């Protein structure tokens, strides 16, 4: 098992005029390949900030972040965009999809950015939609999909580039409990079947119960980090 994410002493200070907020205060974290981990903590504890930094959307004020062995704090903006494209899959709480593209096109779009040939990318996008149990809804626009279906498309898209890790920020927060349950089951299944690494920021107790690693963050530091060999089913 190799290390996908390695953070050492990561700090993030936001400045707003005279005010400054320390969102992260020297945080160490290691995520292993195949982890299915939840990141919990009170609102404002720094979960989103941490995911953004791990995903190359934001830069830490101090500390080092390695993704698959590469120090990403030294990358320029374009290199960070490439990192996000090739190594990271993002799933947000909402507004994940491009509204003018159909489900299959949303997935395909990533593959096109990656330079995949048209036939290949259509085939893979269709296959990814099947994986997330959305076969037949390929040509629907996001507005024609339910919230749960939209999140599944987002998962399919996140996985399309075969990333090193999928970072999900409160992916179930906008879903009803049944739909949330389905989504977490889907992600769990994908983790088990293809070994994709997941790190999910969440409040949702049902999500936390289903993960095999449970990280708690408080005031910008890791408060606890426990592994469970057998997730509750």
């Amino acid at each position, binding site marked *: 098992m190799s290390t996908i994410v390695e953070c050492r002493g990561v700090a993030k200070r936001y400045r707003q005029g005279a005010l400054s907020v320390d969102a992260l205060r020297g945080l160490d974290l290691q995520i292993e390949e195949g982890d299915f981990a939840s990141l919990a903590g009170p609102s404002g504890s720094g979960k989103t900030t941490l995911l*953004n930094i791990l995903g190359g*959307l934001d830069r830490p004020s101090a500390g080092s972040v390695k993704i698959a062995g590469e120090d990403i704090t030294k990358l320029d903006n374009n290199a960070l965009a490439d990192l*996000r494209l090739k190594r*990271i899959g*993002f799933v947000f709480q909402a*507004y994940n999809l*491009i509204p*003018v593209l159909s489900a299959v096109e949303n997935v395909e779009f990533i593959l096109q950015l990656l330079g995949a040939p048209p036939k290949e990318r259509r085939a893979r996008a269709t296959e990814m939609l099947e994986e997330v149990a959305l076969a037949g809804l390929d040509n629907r626009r996001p507005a024609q999909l339910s919230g749960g279906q939209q999140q599944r498309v987002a998962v399919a898209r996140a996985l399309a580039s075969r990333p090193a890790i999928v970072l999900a920020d409160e992916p179930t927060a906008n879903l009803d409990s049944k739909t949330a349950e389905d989504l977490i089951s889907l992600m769990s299944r994908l983790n088990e079947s293809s070994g994709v690494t997941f790190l999910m920021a969440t409040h949702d107790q049902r999500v936390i119960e289903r993960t095999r690693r449970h990280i708690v963050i408080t005031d910008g530091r890791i408060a606890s980090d426990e592994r469970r060999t057998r997730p509750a089913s």
Partner: protein
Amino acid sequence: MLAALAWRNIWRQPHRTALSLASIIVASAVTIFLLALQQGAYGTMEESVLRLLDGFAQAQPGGYADDPDLNKTIAKPETAIARLKEIKAVTVAAPRASTYVILSNGDRSFGSAVFGVDPSAEEKLSTLAGTVKEGRYLGPDDENAAFVGAGLARNLKISTGDKITMLGGARDRSIAADVLTVVGVFSTGSPEIDRQVIEMPLTRFQSDFAMDGGANVVAVGGRSLADIQAVLPALRKAAAEIGLTMRDWTELEPALHDVILLDASFSALLYVSLVVIVVFIILNTLLMSVLERTREFGMLMAIGMRPNQIGAMIWMELLFLAVVGAVIGVAFGAGLTAWFAGRGIAFPDAEILFRQWNMPSTLYPDLNWRSALAGPTAIMLSIVFAGVIPYLRVRGLEPVSAMRAV
């Protein structure tokens, strides 16, 4: 897919896009129509003025234009005429001599410009022969005949068949005097010309003024002014070969040329303001939509799109708007203009004004590639260039702050 994305994005707000397109279409159509009308008017003005007397160009002795002196002559006008007629576009080349004289009838005397002309050539070159009010134009067998402007005829109290005395200075500094018989009176509508001009046969002029077979200028005519303008370099070369200077219409009618330039620069100001307004509308609309989509851009960056790719997408949206608008605008504007070009546009109120320039009061828009494409192209390019503003704005976005935008 970036292009497809851009295309679909512009239809997310169909009303807004329709308004943007409408502003491009209307502005394009307006510039086409106005430019064509303007060019049509200028063309009519130029041709009307030049056809009356000047011709479309003239071969002259050096310095004649600044100081038209009887002594600056073309010794052998036939040679010049033959050489100029070698150029295909030249349909007629007419020799002329002219000077100032005093005309009298009894105790009435008036100053006048007298032109010695070759009547048969002149009939093809100048529309003056067609403005006969009474009597007839000069004929090839006339000798001491005069074709007199109506104003001058009124002042001298003469009409067809009357005799007038002409007194002037000949080329050899002797006194030139002759008695001419009025064969016709013309009325051009231009009071200045009608009051100041008479024409007489060139041969008689040459003997009266000791011209020794010479003339002062050779006026050149063609099917249209544009035809002659197109062969100006050849005309200049031909004139230079026989020791003459070719004067184009701007040199023959500098005042008219200035009026047209002044009018054109005022209209240019109008066109520029129109373009600026359209660009402002389009840019403003796009910036609004960029602002509304900031969060979406954050998402696009999160999934790995580079900011400059997003900027390129926005630029493409503008490009699509500009191209679609301009294409429809050209079709619409050119169609409208072509319709008016077929019917002509009457300006009954301007009839008196136009007559001074020997112009008809119905104008025909001149729809050509230039009038059809200049405006829309300028609008299209300005919009596309203005796209650098949203492009830079989007390129400068930070993913995290973009995603936090509401």
